[in-house]
C-alpha cells in the first residue's frame, strides 16, 4: 500500500487514473460510464484533498471511488425514465466489444466481464477491488467500510457465483 500522499489532484489523476478507470470499467462494463466515473472521482478528490488527513491515502481514494460508483447506481435506479428492463439491456451491452482498442477480443475475456456484471454489486466491487485493483482485504474493508471478515465472505461468494456463470 502506498502511504505517501500525492501532492495534487493532477498527480492523483496521473498515478491512479488508470486504476480508477479499470475499476469503473469492470464494474459498469462500458467505457463511457467508466470515463464519467473517473471524472466524478477526480472532482471529488480535488474537493476533498484540502481536508484530507494523513492516513491511508488509498483507503481514502477507493472509498471516494466506490461511493461515486454507488451514487451513480442509485441515481440511475431513481431515474423514472430508466426502468429496470432498459437498465438490464444496457448492461447486457457490456459483452459487446466497445470502440476501446484495448478491449480484449478474446471471448473468455468477454465472458468474464459479462459474468462480473451479473454479480450483486457488493460481491462485484469486492472481487474487482481485489483482483483488478489489487487491494488487500484490509484495504478493501477500509474502502467499503465493512469488517475484513465481510470482505473475505463477499470475495469468496462472488467467485463462487462467477464459477457458476463461467462453467
Amino acid at each position, binding site marked *: 500500500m502506498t502511504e505517501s500522499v500525492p*501532492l495534487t489532484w493532477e498527480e492523483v489523476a496521473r498515478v491512479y487514473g488508470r486504476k480508477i478507470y479499470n475499476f469503473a470499467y469492470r464494474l459498469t462494463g462500458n467505457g463511457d460510464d467508466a470515463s464519467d466515473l473517473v471524472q466524478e472521482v477526480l472532482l471529488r478528490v480535488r474537493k476533498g484533498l484540502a481536508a484530507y488527513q494523513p492516513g491511508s491515502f488509498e483507503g481514502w481514494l477507493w472509498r471516494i471511488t466506490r461511493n461515486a460508483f454507488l451514487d451513480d447506481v442509485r441515481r440511475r435506479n431513481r431515474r423514472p425514465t430508466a426502468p429496470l428492463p432498459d437498465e438490464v439491456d444496457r448492461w447486457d451491452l457490456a459483452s459487446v466489444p466497445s470502440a476501446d482498442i484495448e478491449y480484449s477480443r478474446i471471448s473468455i475475456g468477454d465472458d*468474464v466481464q459479462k459474468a462480473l456484471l451479473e454479480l450483486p454489486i457488493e460481491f462485484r466491487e469486492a472481487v474487482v477491488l481485489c483482483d483488478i485493483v489489487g487491494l488487500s482485504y484490509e484495504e478493501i474493508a477500509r474502502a467499503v467500510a465493512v469488517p475484513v471478515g465481510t470482505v473475505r465472505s463477499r470475495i469468496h461468494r462472488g467467485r463462487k457465483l462467477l*464459477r457458476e456463470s463461467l462453467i
Partner: protein
Amino acid sequence: MTHPGELISAYLDGELTRAEIQQLFSHVGGCGRCASELEAMQRVRAAVRSLPLLELPQGLVPEADAELVPLHRNRGFMIGAAAAVVALVIAVAALVTPSVSAISVDELTSRYGARASLDPAFGPAKVVVPHLVDIVE
C-alpha cells in the same frame, strides 16, 4: 465436518495466517469437494486477473500543466519538490557569496525542508554544491 469455504479464497489471496493455512489443508487433504473447490476458485481468480488492463481514454486525465496550481500539500517529500529544491540550490550555488550564503540557505531549509540540503543521503544537492553544507554549518 464444516467445510472451510471462505478460507479457500482467502488462501489464494495470501490473506491467511499460518494456523489458518494448516487448518485449511488438513481439511482439504481429506475432502474431495473442498479440493475441487480450491481448484475451481483458483481458475476463477486467474480468469478475472487475466482481464487486460485498459488504457485511459485520451484526454480523460489532465497532462502536466503549469497553470494548474496545486491545491494542497499534505505531507511527504515528493520528487517534484525535491527537484525544485535541487534546481534552487544549484541556482544559489552559482550566485552564492560569503555575505548572503548563511541567510539564503537557512531560508531554503526552513521553506523547502531540511532534508533536501542537510540529509547526507540526499546525494544530488551535496554533490552539486558540496560547499553549501559547510556554509550551513
